């Protein structure tokens, strides 16, 4: 064990034993570090949860055909003649057929619509999807948990659990005004927390009639024979129509939408956390400067006995890091308790509200911890240098 190690250990021990004298300011430093950690962890957990939700939505064995040069449902439009061509395709095209030889497919439109809450105070923007009767079966991992599916040709709704829990008017039997007409909620479905749960589903023709979108089809979902069959489908589509169509798997479609919003959350979270970290660093600097001032005589005495400048530096710096580390521990524990699994919602896939859970993942914790620790390391560095520059004779004169 080298001398410098023993010196630092002895100095650090004296520091920590003397911490009681400057308890208030030390605790305030820990708490400000904890706050920084909480803020960053909160935002990152939000982004991670959002991403995880969209990444967990959709199946690789369902193909989504989009038209109009869009690779998102929002701007897509499939011309009627192209649609007829696709549905009339014979032979092996990689798509599952029903007993009657028809392709297992669902024509769909999606739109956003304002819903007034029961109390009339809040309005929420919902994603309303019109689909063929086979639409629900084309969603893997979706299960009706209450009520029944909508009946074709009627203004009936089934509501995702995510919406039913927090959105207005999700209860079965409830009337919801969409567009100019009243609709009846007849069922609720679960989808493992995925983005599907933030949608409202209804009959295709009923939606098109209510919103004056007769004849329109935005996307066509097809049940693939398997994930790799999408290549076969693409090849087959090339022969059908001159209209450029985009074919993606449903899983890709949702995952592709997560990037922008998650990045936006991070883009907002990082500067805010960094700004607070600057404040916390100033706090750490102040705390450690007062620690050095408080330990002036002790430091000078040890230095007079032959303790090195390096030991004075390290003992102060490590004290700062330990305080920051405790702050990090508090911050992580709080983030976990407060945020992990917390239900949030934001504008999602189709500019409608999408529910998701915050996830305090390992990566989130690591990043927030590093930022918290950095405040201690940076804020503690200058005071640690000050500890090495302490004028010994003056400090010893203050002896008593």
């Amino acid at each position, binding site marked *: 064990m080298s*001398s410098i190690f*023993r*010196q630092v250990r*002895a100095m650090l021990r*004296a520091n920590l*034993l*003397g911490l009681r004298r400057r308890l208030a300011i030390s605790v305030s430093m820990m708490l400000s570090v904890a706050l920084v950690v909480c803020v960053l962890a909160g935002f990152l957990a939000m982004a991670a949860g959002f991403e995880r939700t969209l990444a967990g939505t959709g199946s690789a064995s369902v193909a989504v055909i989009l038209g109009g040069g869009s690779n998102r449902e929002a701007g897509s439009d499939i011309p009627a003649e192209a649609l007829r061509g696709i549905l009339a395709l014979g032979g092996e095209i990689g798509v599952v057929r029903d007993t009657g030889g028809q392709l297992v497919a669902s024509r769909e439109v999606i739109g956003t619509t304002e819903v007034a809450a029961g109390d009339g105070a809040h309005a929420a923007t919902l994603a309303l999807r019109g689909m063929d009767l086979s639409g629900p079966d084309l969603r893997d991992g979706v299960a009706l948990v209450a009520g029944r599916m909508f009946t074709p040709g009627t203004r009936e709704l089934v509501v995702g659990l995510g919406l039913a829990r927090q959105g207005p008017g999700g209860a079965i039997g409830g009337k919801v005004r969409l567009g100019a007409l009243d609709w009846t909620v007849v069922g609720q479905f679960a989808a493992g927390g995925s983005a599907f749960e933030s949608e409202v589903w209804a009959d295709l023709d009923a939606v098109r009639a209510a919103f004056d979108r007769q004849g329109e089809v935005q996307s066509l979902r097809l049940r693939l024979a398997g994930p790799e069959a999408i290549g076969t489908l693409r090849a087959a589509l090339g022969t059908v129509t001159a209209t450029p169509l985009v074919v993606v798997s449903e899983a890709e479609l949702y995952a592709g939408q997560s990037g922008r919003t998650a990045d936006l959350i991070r883009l907002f979270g990082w500067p805010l956390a960094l700004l607070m970290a600057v404040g916390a660093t100033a706090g750490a600097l102040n705390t450690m400067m007062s620690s050095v001032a408080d330990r002036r*005589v*002790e430091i000078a*005495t*040890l*230095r*007079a*006995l*032959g*303790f*090195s*400048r390096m030991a004075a530096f390290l003992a102060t710096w490590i004290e700062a890091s330990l305080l920051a580390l405790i702050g990090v521990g508090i911050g992580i524990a709080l983030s976990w308790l407060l945020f992990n699994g917390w239900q949030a919602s934001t504008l999602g896939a189709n500019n409608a509200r999408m529910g998701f859970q915050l996830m305090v993942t390992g990566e989130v914790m690591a990043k927030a911890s590093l930022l918290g620790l950095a405040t201690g390391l940076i804020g503690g560095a200058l005071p640690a240098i000050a500890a090495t520059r302490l004028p*010994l*004779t003056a400090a*010893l*004169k203050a*002896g*008593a």
Partner: protein
Amino acid sequence: MTEPATDAPYIALKAVQKGFKIGAEAVPIFTALDLTIPRGDFVAIMGPSGSGKSTLLNMLAGIDSPDGGELRIGSARLDRMGEGARSSWRAHSMGIVFQFYNLLPMLTAAENVELPLLLKPLAARDRRARVEKVLDLVGLSGRGGQYPALMSGGEQQRVGIARAIVSDPALLLCDEPTGDLDRKSAGGVLEMLRFLNRKLGKTIVMVTHDPRAASCARRTLHLDKGQFLEERRAA
């Protein structure tokens, strides 16, 4: 260990200059200070407040450095050393006793005494043995576990002396070691210092205001206006 005082200069100051800057103004303390102290001597330095006694002692301790001139202790040229070299010189070559003891309040007496030993390549068991031995020597056997706040001034100063001698340095520097003590405690501390000089052969330089303290020394130097005035040799 017991060496008789010889006339070979152990400490030698030649034309040492030292001053302080107060604001923009340079205030000289010493313009050309000469001093030689042989090995095994016990020197008391007296003089009015502000005459530079502490400044001189701090230079001898390697805590402060001269602005000019030569300062040699043993074979070490302290005037030529940087801060790093001086701090390791301090660790190995001298022990220092402060007027206000300068014990670390959160450490026990034994832990305070052990501090200088942490600078040496010693195992914990050896450190403990030496701490016990010096606490014995200063008459504080069995008191190692006590905190300084629970000790009298005289006891605290004896802990301070134990800390100064625990690593067995040849040179002991004391800045008004009895300045804060009552008469009886002061007597005990002085007896201790005399013992360290006479029996263990330590070279001691002690700054003091107290003529009785000075009478323990082998000789007394009077410092005034940056110069030594007169010299009185004890019997």
